[in-house]
């Protein structure tokens, strides 16, 4: 073989790549030129022990944290994506699923710290369980199922109208909540820690049983101001239920299906949403209002205590929500209070 032939062959065969970058392929008539792609490497360490848990190479630069979590699950199947918290700094904030690898302040070898969030359960499951409980439990007391009250009261019915009305209101409230969970709410998060379901269910089911016991008791005393009190309370309850539902719909319409966008809620044509002018979380305001109505209707101290505890919890949530609105949006309406207009 003479030198000419060698030279010709050499020019036709591509030299092997010296560095790790893939060689550019000469353009052919039928193919588009491939861009040079720089793959990332991702190293996942345990946030507490700094132990190397996983090394991922050939990660696309535009991979999201969600995709990295799925890759991590392949090597550690016990840590499904929902219970992974990946962060750039062991003591820092968790990275969001939507974050893109190349937009993070990392080099081509990214070091992520992993923290196990513990067993997770979906929000929908928790909501359905914690709301189905009170619905059923209240009915057990309403129908005076055996072993709750004395034997002679088994399956009897109260002679007070307000007791029947209370059952309708209470059941309506929880059916509404269940339907909203299934069809209305658009959750920001898929899951929460598993132990929350025990905590939440104890709270809801416990209080439901406690209230229902007294309202449906054979020795129940109807409200002091009779029919007037019940009518007023029913009106408050109904209006607040409608208000609460209107707010849930308004909040749902702020966010397209499947997205996690956050926008400032504003009043709509629905008069119940006009409370947005004064309050950041009118859904909580209306919820407290409903329970105040129910407490007045039944004139039952356990209901009042349940309302109080719920109010305290919702105030904490409303304040947190209000604070995050203020932090996120520069143009957030200054007139708004977290839960009670002008006061709280």
């Amino acid at each position, binding site marked *: 073989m003479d030198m000419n032939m060698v030279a010709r062959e050499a020019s036709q065969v591509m030299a092997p790549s010296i560095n790790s970058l893939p060689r550019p392929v000469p353009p052919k008539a039928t193919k588009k030129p491939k861009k040079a792609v720089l793959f990332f490497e991702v190293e996942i360490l345990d946030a507490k022990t700094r132990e190397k848990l996983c090394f991922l190479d050939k990660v696309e630069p535009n991979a999201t944290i969600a995709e990295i979590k799925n890759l991590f699950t392949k090597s550690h199947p016990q840590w499904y994506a929902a219970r992974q*918290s990946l962060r750039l700094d062991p*003591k*820092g*904030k*968790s990275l969001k699923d939507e974050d893109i690898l190349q937009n993070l302040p990392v080099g081509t070898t990214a070091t992520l710290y992993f*923290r196990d*969030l*513990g067993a997770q359960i979906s*929000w929908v499951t*928790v909501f359905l369980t914690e709301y189905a409980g009170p619905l059923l439990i209240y009915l057990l007391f309403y129908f005076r199922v055996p072993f709750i009250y004395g034997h002679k009261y088994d399956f009897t019915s109260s002679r007070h109208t307000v007791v029947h009305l209370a059952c309708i209101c209470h059941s309506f409230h929880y059916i509404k909540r269940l339907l909203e969970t299934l069809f209305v709410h658009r959750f*920001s*998060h898929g*899951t*929460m*820690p598993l*132990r*929350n379901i025990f*905590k*939440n269910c104890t709270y809801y089911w416990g209080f439901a049983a406690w209230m229902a016991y*007294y*309202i449906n*008791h054979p*020795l*129940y*005393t109807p409200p*002091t101001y009779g029919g007037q009190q019940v009518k007023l309370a029913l009106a408050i309850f109904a209006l607040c239920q409608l208000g609460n539902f209107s707010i849930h719909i308004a909040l749902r319409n702020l966010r397209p299906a499947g997205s996690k966008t956050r926008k400032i809620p504003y009043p709509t044509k629905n008069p119940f949403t006009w409370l947005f002018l004064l309050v950041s979380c009118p859904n909580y305001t209306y919820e407290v209002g409903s329970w105040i109505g129910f407490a007045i209707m*039944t*004139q*039952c*101290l*356990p209901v009042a205590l349940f309302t109080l505890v719920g109010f305290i*919890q919702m105030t*904490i*949530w409303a304040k*947190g*929500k209000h604070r*995050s609105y203020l932090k996120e949006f520069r143009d957030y309406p200054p007139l708004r209070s977290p839960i009670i207009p002008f006061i709280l």
Partner: protein
Amino acid sequence: MVFTARFLLPPPAPTPRVSPWPRLITLTPPPPSSYPLLGRAHSASSCLLPGQVEIGILDMAAAATAVSSTTKGNGTSGRSGPSEASGPRKKKGPGPLATAYLVIYNVVMTAGWLVIAVGLVRAYLAKGSYHSLYFSIEKPLKFFQTGALLEILHCAIGIVPSSVVLTSFQVMSRVFLIWAVTHSVKEVQSEDSVLLFVIAWTVTEIIRYSFYTFSLLNHLPYIIKWARYTLFIVLYPMGVSGELLTIYAALPFVRQANLYSISLPNKYNFSFDYYAFLILIMISYIPLFPQLYLHMIHQRRKVLSHPEEQKKYE
């Protein structure tokens, strides 16, 4: 021959060795140079210093919820969305005025509990027996134990870096035993179980308040720290036994008098059975006591065996 000769020769002189370990110069740890320790200093969410538990077993519930609950990860409140894991906490000391006030408070409390201790000893010597000593220290006991309610305020206004909820729970449990059990059910006041928890509380509180005093003044003698983290091993079960026996002794009298109980029918459709409530309280000791006791044992191991890490737990 050579073999035996080796045994006859004196052993070679040992080569002098320089000890590789640094000589221990002081036995007591150097005073902490960071901000003074305040009240129930405890870090972040779930760590609890033993001192916080020494004041009574009913405190356990709060501490147990702190120990067992983990406020990290997303959706812990169930609704509020993800709460970020707490970053490194910055220790902000109280101002000089607050420190002065806290020193006075802790000194007064130490003195108060010393008064109770002395009162007990004098009454014992005067009476010649240890029965019914409660009556001789009833007033200072009520005054100083109720005064501990101020500690809730201290947490609330921020001069003491402890959780308000935890502190409330602990103080309220003590106040509950003093007023709602011992004071309310006069028949138990002559019980020996009362003496049991009074002694446990007295010793614990004297050590605890002097611990805080010295810490605030940046001059904590090791013996106080040792006492605080060691004596609980005996005092804690002692206090718990006293409390449980007292509540148990009060039960029949509560039932008899229907004390603090409301029954149906009434205008507010509410009922409360204090007897059942007391039994529930007693049952709550079962899960809480072992948890807290073990937690304190672990804390002790950490605090007393790592002198260089003591700053973290002070």
